[in-house]
C-alpha cells in the first residue's frame, strides 16, 4: 500500500472516530443528560472565571435554598457561589472542597453541616444522591480519585461517561425540553444568574409544633455516625494541609421533635470543629435571633423560603465580613455586568415568589431554568428592602 493511501485511510478513520466521539459528547452534555437544578448549579460554578469568587458555599439543599449570592453581592459587595447539590454526601463535600481549591482561591469556604448530621451512613451510599453531584463534575483528578475509591468497579465507566447511564433519556422527551434548553442557554450565556440559588414558592403547612424557640438554650450533644465523623476528620485534615479558611455553618430549620436529634449532633459537630480550630456557626440554634419566623419563613421543615433566605443571607454575610474578616476583591470590569444580572435576577426571583405566595400559589423549583427566567422578566429587579 502506498504511503499516500495509508494517510488517506488514516484520515478517513479519524473523521469517522471524531464524528462519533463529538456526537457522543454533544449527546452526553445536552440531549441525553439528566439535567436538573443540580446540574445547572454545578456547571455554573465551573463557568465562574478562575479566582473570581470571594466565597464559596458548599453543602446540600440546606444551603442552596438559604443563601442568596446575588443579595450578598448587592448588600455586602462580595462575590460568592453555591457549589451545592441535593442531599450531597460527605464524600461529595470533600470533593467539592478539593474542586474549589483546584479552580478558585476564595477568601473563605463555607460548609453547611447537613451531610455529617445523618443518624446513619445511608446517605453516603445513596446512588441517586451521589450521581446528582458527581455526574455534573467535569473529569478531573479529584473526580477520578472519588471514582477509584468509592465506586464499584462495574459502575466506574458510568461516572466517566454518564451517557452510559442516561442514554435512554430520549424516551422522556418532550418533558425534558425545558431543562435541556436551560442547559444550552447557560452554556451560551456563560454564567449562572442565580449563582446556584433555588427555592420553592410556598409557606410551610404543618401541624407539628416548632421547637426553634428552645434551641438557643440547647447544649446537648449526640454522637455523630462513626463513618461520618471519620469523614469529617478526613475533611479537616485536608483543610489543615491546604491551610484553607473554612467555616462551618448550620442553617436554620423548622425543628420538630422528630428532627431534634440533628440539633444535638450539630452541637457535637460544632465542638469537634472548634477543637480542630474551625469556626462553626450553629445558626439553627439562633434562628429566633436572626428573626426567622417559623410560621412564615420556611417552605418545608428543612428549607427556608425567600423570606427566611433573605434574613439568613444578610445575617451570615455580616458574620463572614465582620467576624471572619471576609473582604471583597475588586471585581474585574468584565464581570460587573454578570454580577449586576445576578442581583437583578435574585431580586426578581424574590418578588416572583412573594407574588405567588401572596396569592397562595405554590411553585416548586423556582430556579435557574428557561421557563422561570422568562417569567422573572415580569418582575422588578430593584433592591429588596428588609422590613
Amino acid at each position, binding site marked *: 500500500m502506498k504511503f499516500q493511501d495509508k494517510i488517506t*485511510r488514516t484520515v*478517513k478513520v479519524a*473523521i*469517522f472516530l471524531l*464524528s*462519533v466521539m463529538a*456526537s*457522543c459528547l454533544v*449527546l452526553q452534555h445536552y440531549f*441525553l443528560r439528566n439535567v436538573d437544578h443540580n446540574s445547572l448549579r454545578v456547571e455554573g460554578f465551573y463557568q465562574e472565571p478562575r479566582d473570581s469568587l470571594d466565597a464559596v458555599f458548599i453543602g446540600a439543599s440546606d444551603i442552596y435554598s438559604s443563601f442568596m449570592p446575588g443579595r450578598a453581592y448587592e448588600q455586602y459587595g462580595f462575590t460568592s457561589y453555591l457549589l451545592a447539590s441535593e442531599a450531597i454526601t460527605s464524600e461529595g463535600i470533600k470533593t467539592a472542597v478539593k474542586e474549589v481549591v483546584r479552580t478558585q482561591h476564595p477568601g473563605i469556604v463555607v460548609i453547611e453541616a447537613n451531610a455529617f448530621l445523618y443518624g446513619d451512613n445511608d446517605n453516603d451510599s445513596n446512588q441517586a444522591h451521589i450521581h446528582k453531584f458527581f455526574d455534573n463534575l467535569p473529569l478531573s483528578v479529584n473526580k477520578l480519585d472519588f471514582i477509584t475509591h468509592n465506586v464499584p*468497579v*462495574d*459502575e466506574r*465507566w*458510568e461516572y466517566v*461517561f454518564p*451517557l*452510559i*447511564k442516561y*442514554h*435512554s433519556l*430520549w*424516551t422522556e422527551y418532550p418533558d425534558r425540553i425545558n431543562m435541556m434548553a436551560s442547559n444550552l442557554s447557560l452554556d451560551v450565556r456563560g454564567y449562572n444568574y442565580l449563582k446556584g440559588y433555588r427555592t420553592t414558592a410556598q409557606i410551610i403547612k404543618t401541624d407539628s409544633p416548632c421547637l426553634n424557640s428552645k434551641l438557643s438554650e440547647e447544649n446537648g450533644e449526640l454522637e455523630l455516625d462513626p463513618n461520618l465523623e471519620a469523614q469529617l476528620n478526613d475533611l479537616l485534615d485536608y483543610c489543615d494541609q491546604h491551610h484553607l479558611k473554612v467555616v462551618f455553618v448550620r442553617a436554620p430549620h423548622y425543628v420538630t421533635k422528630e428532627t431534634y436529634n440533628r440539633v444535638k449532633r450539630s452541637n457535637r459537630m460544632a465542638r469537634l470543629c472548634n477543637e480542630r480550630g474551625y469556626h462553626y456557626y450553629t445558626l439553627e440554634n439562633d434562628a429566633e435571633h436572626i428573626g426567622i419566623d417559623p410560621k412564615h419563613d420556611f417552605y418545608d421543615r428543612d428549607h427556608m423560603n425567600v423570606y427566611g433566605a433573605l434574613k439568613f443571607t444578610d445575617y451570615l454575610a455580616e458574620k463572614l465580613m465582620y467576624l471572619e474578616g471576609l473582604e471583597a476583591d475588586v471585581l474585574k470590569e468584565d464581570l460587573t455586568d454578570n454580577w449586576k444580572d445576578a442581583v437583578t435576577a435574585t431580586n426578581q426571583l424574590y418578588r416572583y415568589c412573594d407574588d405567588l405566595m401572596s396569592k397562595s400559589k405554590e411553585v416548586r423549583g423556582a430556579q435557574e431554568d428557561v421557563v422561570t427566567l422568562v417569567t422573572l422578566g415580569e418582575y422588578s429587579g430593584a433592591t429588596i428592602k428588609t422590613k
Partner: protein
Amino acid sequence: MLFNISYTTLNFLFFVLVTMLVYFLFPAKKYKWTVLLAVSVFFYAVAGYKFAFFILFTSLTTYIVALWLERVSGKSKKLLKEKKKEWDRDQKKKYKSRIKTQKRLIMTLALVLNFGILAFLKYYNFFAGSLNDILGGFGVGFSAPTLKLFLPLGISFYTFQSMGYIVDVYREKTAAQKNPFKLLLFVSFFPQIIQGPISIYDQLANQLYEPHAFDFTRMKHGMELILWGFFKKLIIADRAAIIITAVENDYANYGGSALTFTILLYAIQLYADFSGGIDISRGVAQIFGIDLMENFKRPYFSKSINEYWRRWHISLGGWMKNYVFYPVAMSNVFITAGKKMKGSRFGKTAAGAHVSKVLPTAVASLIVFLIVGVWHGDNWKYVAFGLWNGVIIMLSILMQPLFDGAVDKLHINRKNPFFVGFQIFRTLLVVLVGYVFDVAPSFSEGMRTIALFFTGQNVALGVEQIGKIGLLPQDYCVLIVASLVVLVASIIQERHPDTDIRTMLDQKPYLVRLVVLYVAVMSIVIFGIYGSGYNAADFVYMQF
C-alpha cells in the same frame, strides 16, 4: 466474577483493544499465540475464576488422552509394519481389532470423565428430583438429596469442542497436540468460550497458533461484525427480553394472546441474542486473523425443519452430525435393522422400500434431537422440545415420498414464491411450537400454552397484559424498526449468499460507508439497552 467483562460491556471492548495492541506489537512472532492464551486465561479467570478447575481438568484430560490415543495408534502401526511378513491376515485382523477396542476404551474414558462432569453438574438435581417424584408416587420413603451445584462458564461449549477433538484423534483424522498450552488455547479461546461456536480442531487450531500480522481490512470487517452483533443484542434482544422475562416470571397469569405475542417476540429475541453474540465472537476473532465458523444462516427463511437445523446453531448441528448422528446411523444395529426390514414383506412394497432405506437416518435424527433437547436444560420441557423437533424431522424423512407425490399431483411449482412462502410459514410454525417449551416454565405449562393458542385468544386482554409490563411505545417503535433492519439485511444476504454485506459496503463511496457506520454506532449508543439502569440480560445461550 472479579468485574463484569461480558461481551456487551465497555470493559470487554477495552480488553479487546489492549489485547489487539499487545498481540500485534508482540515481538516474537512464533509465540504470538501465547498472547491469545494469556488473555484467554485472564478472561476466564475474571469471568469465573472459581470454575477454572473444570476447564483445566478438561484441557488436561483431553491433552493426555489424545496423546495416549496417538501413542497406541503409532505403536500398533509400527508393530504391524514390523510383523508385516511374520503375521498372517487373521493375526493382523485380530491385533487391529484389539487395538481398536483399546483405543475405544481410552476414548470412552475421556468422554465419560468429561461428559460425566457436565451431566452431573447440569442434570444431577433433575434426575434426583425426577427419581424422588417417581419413588414418591410408589410410596417409597427414599429421597435422593438435591445438591447446590453451579455450572462453570461455557462448560457445554468447551466440553463438546474438546471431546470432538478426542474423537477426531481417535479416528486419526487429526494429530494430537503435543504442546499442552496450545491445547489449552484451543479449549479456552476467549471469543468463543461463552457461547461458541463449537469449533472443529482442524478448522481452528492452526489459525490460533499461526502468527497473524495486522490487517486493516480484517480489523475493519471484524469491528463491523461486532457492531452488527451489538445492534442485534443491545437494541433488539435485550429490549425484547424485558417483556419475555416479565411474562416468564408470572407465566400462569397470562392469557393466550399475551403468550402468543411473547412466543413470537421470543423468536426474535433468541435469534438476535444468539446470533448477535456469535457475531461479536466472530468479529473479535476476525480482528486477530482467526475465522470462526458461521453459526447462523438466516434460519427463519428455512423451507423445512430439517433445513432450519442446518441454518440454526450450525456448529452444534455439525458436531451432532459428526459425532452422534453418523456413528448411530452407521452402527451395525441400525444397518442390520434396515436390511432386515428391506427383506421383509413390508420392505418389498414401495413405501416399505423407502422406509427401510431411510429408517436408520430417521431414528438417528430422533436420537440426535433428543440429545439436543436434553443439552438445552435439565427439565422435561426440553425433552419435549427435542422430541418435537426430532419427531417432525423423522416424520418428514419417512413421509417425504408422500409429500413429493402430493405436490406433483397438485401441479405445484416448487419455485413458486407463494409455495416457498407457505413452506417458510409452515416451518416457522413448527419452530414456534418448539419455542413454547423454551419459554414455558414447565412441560405442562407448555402444553397449556399450545392449547391456549387455539382456545384462549383474547386480543384486548393480551394488549392490556402486555401493556402493563411497562415497555414504552417508543421502545416498541425501536424494536420494530431494528427488527426490520435485520430482516432487510437478511434478505440481502439471502439473495447474495456468496458475499457478505460488509464486502458489499466496501464497494460503496466513502460517504455512504461513513453514514451507515455512523448511524449504526449512534443507534447502539442511543437505543441500546445497557448501563446499570438496566439489568442487562446475559446471553441466552450462556446458560447452556
